[in-house]
């Protein structure tokens, strides 16, 4: 027997389509949050999110974890900045970025760039990429092809240490990353500064 069910009105069809699209987007949003967490996502979430959702959510800047932790009191949560010095002109002053006149979001972007430079040195896929690029980008504005590039960071003091007088409320600064960046025969060379390593004393061969 013929089915006499009337065709759905156009509005219902549009709503059905929108319902599917919205449902798909909400699943994508949740997988992006789960897959972009600083704790790392599971292989299953990474695979589904990476293959089905990243291709269309990344271009719209929506493939994000939104995990704004503000602080965990870790060293990488401190303020970061660059210190760039010309090695071919030792008398030239050190340039600090963001500079003292930089304000608001402009200064925040420089701090993010400095932090990314230091933090990503621990990532094997991104190691050395930013220091070399930042150093090379500094050649023209600072009119030099031999620079010292350092990322400094501010370590706030522990409140308890300030209260007992063991620390100053200002905190202290430390070098998070340092390298020499130079241009030799058209190629950018990055020579990372290595921290002094404690060596074991030589053991002398006891005399027979």
């Amino acid at each position, binding site marked *: 027997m013929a089915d006499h069910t009337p065709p759905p009105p156009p509005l219902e069809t549009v709503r059905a389509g929108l319902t599917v699209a919205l449902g798909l987007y909400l699943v994508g949003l949740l997988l992006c949050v789960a897959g972009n967490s600083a704790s790392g996502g599971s292989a299953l979430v990474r695979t589904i999110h990476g293959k089905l959702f990243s291709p269309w959510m990344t271009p719209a800047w929506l493939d994000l974890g939104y995990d704004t932790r503000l602080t965990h009191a870790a060293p990488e949560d401190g303020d970061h900045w660059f210190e760039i010095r010309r090695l071919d002109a030792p008398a030239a002053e050190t340039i600090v970025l963001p500079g003292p006149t930089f304000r608001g979001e*402009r200064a925040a972007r420089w701090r993010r760039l400095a932090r990314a430079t230091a933090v990503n040195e621990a990532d094997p896929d991104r190691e050395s990429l930013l220091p070399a690029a930042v150093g090379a980008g500094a050649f023209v504005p600072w009119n030099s092809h031999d620079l010292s590039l350092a990322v400094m960071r501010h370590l706030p003091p522990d409140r308890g240490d300030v209260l007992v007088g063991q620390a100053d409320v200002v905190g202290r600064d430390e070098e998070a990353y340092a390298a020499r960046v130079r241009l030799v025969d058209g190629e950018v060379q990055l020579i990372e500064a290595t921290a002094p390593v404690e060596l074991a004393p030589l053991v002398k061969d006891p005399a027979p």
Partner: protein
Amino acid sequence: MNAPRRPAALPALADTIGDTWMRFWFTPAGPWPLALVRLLGGLVAVALWTSYAWDLETWFGPAGMISPELLAAWRSPFAASLFDVATSPTALWLGYIAGGLLLLSLTIGLATPVTAPLGAVAFTTLLHRGPMLAGPADDVAAVILWCVAIGRAGDALSVDRLVGAWRGRAAPGATQRTRIALGLIRVHAAVIAAAAVLAQLKGDVWWNGTAAWWLAARADSRLVDLTGAFLASEYLLNLVTHAIVAFEILFAAGLWFPVTRRVVVPLGIVAWPLVGVLAGEPLWGLALAVLAVGCLPTRVQSPV
């Protein structure tokens, strides 16, 4: 023989869920909340856009720090930016000024159906040109701009509306497009607050009540120095830290019940900027307050 009877509870539950879904996404909504989001979110986006101006060539110029080679190794293979093809300072500045004008036009509601999607594309394309420069305020602003592009954001508080009124056109009424945009704003407001609180609670300092100290003691990025007050009173420090977490949880959950929404939305409009100031991310706080504005009940009508 009697046919087996289906339990009545399941279809009833499915109907309830279906009705709630349809009501949430498809009940036509008036234009005012989304128009306010467009105006305030546009101002935040313009401020974020402007922050690139001083260092545009230092970062993205032909000999800039963020070179195409760096981006090729850094970015997701799905990411791309229209600024990638701006290989000369002139092209870079032209694209930057054009994008800024688009965002300004969107903010004042000029040719909104065109400037809203183009403004969102311009904003996200600039973020993709330097992803390591982007911060949490950029992430929230991108969400706002896409939601504004989906709804009819120029139906009120806009140059478009003024021109329409001058030509004798009736004021636009409630639409489903605007409802979908406002629904997406509410979903994102809740998800962003929930994701932030989950990320924070992975750190001990948010449990032992000292997180606000570590925010206040960052000498460069802080906007107000509260270290003196926090040194004087540990309870005050604990209170501020726990209040931030409690507020974020309340906000994420309270948006979903009409009774609590009346409280958490005004609270969010006030509290998010304060959290942003304490965290040294004022535009992030403002952007989240704009999302809260988008969660205002749609029956709130402007007298204008």
